[in-house]
């Protein structure tokens, strides 16, 4: 694992590396290098399996973090490649030609985060949502409650209780 990371470091230097577990590490690299790094890992290091491709919305930093989690079956270890994208220009190179499953992940990210992957098959087709009329719902600046209130009719008289406060009130009414 160390050697793999070292070799990765050697080819794509100067990026932050996190060792989560002995068999799991995350490497943050430039978006432009992702393809080469992925190819390197896939073809040279045996990380043949794309476990997942997911995104995190760092609203405060104005960035999306893409994580390409790759798995090496022979060594039973994983490396996550992280790429930071600007939120306002969320476009990333497609990797559907490296892993066909990538296309599905990218469709999901496109729908849920609004991250574009030009060239990925059917990337603009609807994925989970049918007839969606709001902004990408997984973006943290999307107010799901407001959307729900405007889109759905609610039943009157619904109460929401904080479970902790409710239980406290129920069990220890004397404490007020």
């Amino acid at each position, binding site marked *: 694992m160390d050697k793999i990371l070292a070799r990765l470091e050697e080819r794509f230097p100067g990026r932050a590396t996190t060792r989560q577990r002995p068999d799991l590490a995350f490497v943050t690299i430039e978006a432009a290098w992702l393809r080469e790094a992925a190819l390197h890992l896939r073809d040279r290091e045996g990380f043949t399996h794309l476990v997942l491709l997911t995104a995190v919305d760092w609203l405060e930093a104005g960035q999306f973090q893409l994580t390409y989690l790759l798995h090496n079956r022979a060594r039973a270890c994983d490396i996550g490649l992280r790429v930071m994208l600007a939120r306002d220009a969320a476009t990333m190179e497609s990797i559907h030609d490296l892993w066909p499953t990538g296309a599905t992940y990218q469709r999901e990210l496109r729908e849920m985060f609004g991250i574009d992957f030009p060239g990925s098959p059917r990337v603009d087709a609807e994925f*989970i*949502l*049918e*007839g*969606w*009329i*709001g*902004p990408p*719902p997984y973006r943290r600046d*999307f*107010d*799901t*409650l*407001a*959307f*729900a209130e*405007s*889109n*759905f*009719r*609610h*039943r009157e008289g*619904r109460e*929401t209780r904080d479970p902790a406060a409710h239980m406290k009130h129920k069990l220890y009414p004397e404490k007020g």
Partner: protein
Amino acid sequence: MKDDSRKFPLRPELEPREVKTPDGQTITVDPLRDYFCEAAPRVHAPVYVKIVEDFFNWARSESLWILGFGTGCGAIEMRPLMTPRFDAYRFGIQWRPTPRQANLLMISGYLSVKTLKRAIRSYEQMQSPKYVVGLGSCTINGGMYFDSYNTIKRLDDYLPVDLYIAGCMPRPEALLKGFEDLKKIIRAGKAEGANAYAENFAQYKERQKAVIHDWDMPDYNW
């Protein structure tokens, strides 16, 4: 927040298309009209003689055939009903794999918009008299999904619900009790949801279409 101006074009397979017939003519096929029956649902009056209708209602209540359609987490909760411990069969309840033969639609938990479309279709494909039971608080008022952008908040807006069983989720015992109550409602002749649906068809459709933005089926799925 929501962009009401966004319109969804008809799905390609439903758009009218030009087809060349074997003898060389070109004809237009409009799938929505040619492949789907366009008739609106009818109100079916009860049998005129009350005692006969009561007898029929008794039979209906003692022969509840549930459509095997699980929507949310309740789908799991319903399985124990078949097991020796609860054994719903002894109450005349059984599960049917096709809506044509079922007369009870259990909405077992939260219902996303996408699933709602399927639930409506299944409901409409059942033959009346037919009953809807909402399971769990999600069907009542959204429950813990009150702020979800994609789950409906109250089922009776969209389908004529005869009975709600509250809980998150209700246990099988609660379900059995619910069935008993439903039977009472049916026997009392009050479970006329199908007729209500037909009577207020326009209103139901309006509400359904308000949340299902890409309506891609005929108004009534026979």
